[in-house]
C-alpha cells in the first residue's frame, strides 16, 4: 500500500535522525523530500495532531519523535555508536529497543542528582537499578506530554 505524504514525512524524520544523530529541521525535511516548507509544516502539524510526534510551540520544529528528543534532556543515551537525547526514563530505554541494539542510559536521580546508568538489550535490563515514577495517570499523559 502506498504511503501517505504524512507517513513519508514521518519515515524521513526517523531516517534523517538515524543518519545524522539529530532530529531534522523543517528546512532539512523540505530539502530531502523536495517540497515546500509549508507542506512540511502542514504535515508535521497533522502528525502532531495524531500524536505521532510533538512540535515546539513557537517554531513548529520537531521537539519529540518518541522516544527521541530534539533538545538536551536529563536522559542521555548511547546506542548504535551515537549519543542521543530521550524524553524520559521510559524513552531512554526505548531508543536501543527501537534501534535493535544494546544501549546505555546515562542520567541522575531526579530527587538528589546522584549519577545513575542502566544498560539494556532487547527486553532485558543488563545492569542498573532504580524506580521509575510516573506523575500522571495514563489517560492524562497527552494533556501535557512535555510535563509527562
Amino acid at each position, binding site marked *: *500500500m502506498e*504511503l501517505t505524504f504524512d*507517513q513519508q514525512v*514521518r*519515515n524521513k524524520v*526517523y531516517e534523517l535522525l*538515524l543518519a545524522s544523530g539529530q532530529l531534522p529541521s523543517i528546512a532539512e525535511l523540505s530539502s530531502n523530500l523536495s517540497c515546500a516548507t509549508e507542506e512540511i509544516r502542514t504535515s508535521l502539524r497533522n502528525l502532531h495532531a*495524531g*500524536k*505521532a510526534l510533538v512540535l515546539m510551540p513557537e517554531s513548529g520544529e520537531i521537539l519529540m519523535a*518518541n*522516544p527521541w528528543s530534539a533538545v538536551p534532556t*536529563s536522559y542521555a543515551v548511547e546506542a548504535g555508536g551515537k549519543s542521543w537525547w530521550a524524553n*524520559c*526514563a*521510559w*524513552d*531512554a*530505554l*526505548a*531508543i536501543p*529497543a*527501537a*534501534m*535493535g541494539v544494546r544501549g546505555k542510559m546515562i*542520567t541522575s*536521580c*531526579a*530527587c*538528589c542528582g*546522584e549519577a*545513575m546508568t*542502566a544498560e*539494556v538489550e*532487547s*527486553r*532485558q*535490563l543488563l545492569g*542498573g*537499578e*532504580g*524506580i*521509575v*515514577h*510516573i*506523575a*500522571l*495517570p*495514563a*489517560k492524562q499523559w497527552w494533556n501535557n506530554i512535555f510535563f*509527562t
Partner: protein
Amino acid sequence: MLLFRSEEHIELWCEQWHQSRGGTMSLDTCAKLAFDWYHDRLNPNGRRKTPEEAKGIFDALGLSGAFWSLT
C-alpha cells in the same frame, strides 16, 4: 517519567515539588515496557497503538488498574 534511586527519593521529590504520588515501576519492568512499546517504531508502516493494544502491553507487565487505563 523520572528515574529515582529509591522509594524514599520519590516521596521527597513529590514533597519538594508539591506533586501527588503517581505510579511506579521497576527499571526492569520499564526496560520490558520500552521494548514492547517501541521495538517497531522504525517500521515504515508503523502506527500509533490502539487503546486495546496499549492495554494488552500494560496488562502483560502487571501495569493495571485505573492509573494505567487510557480510556
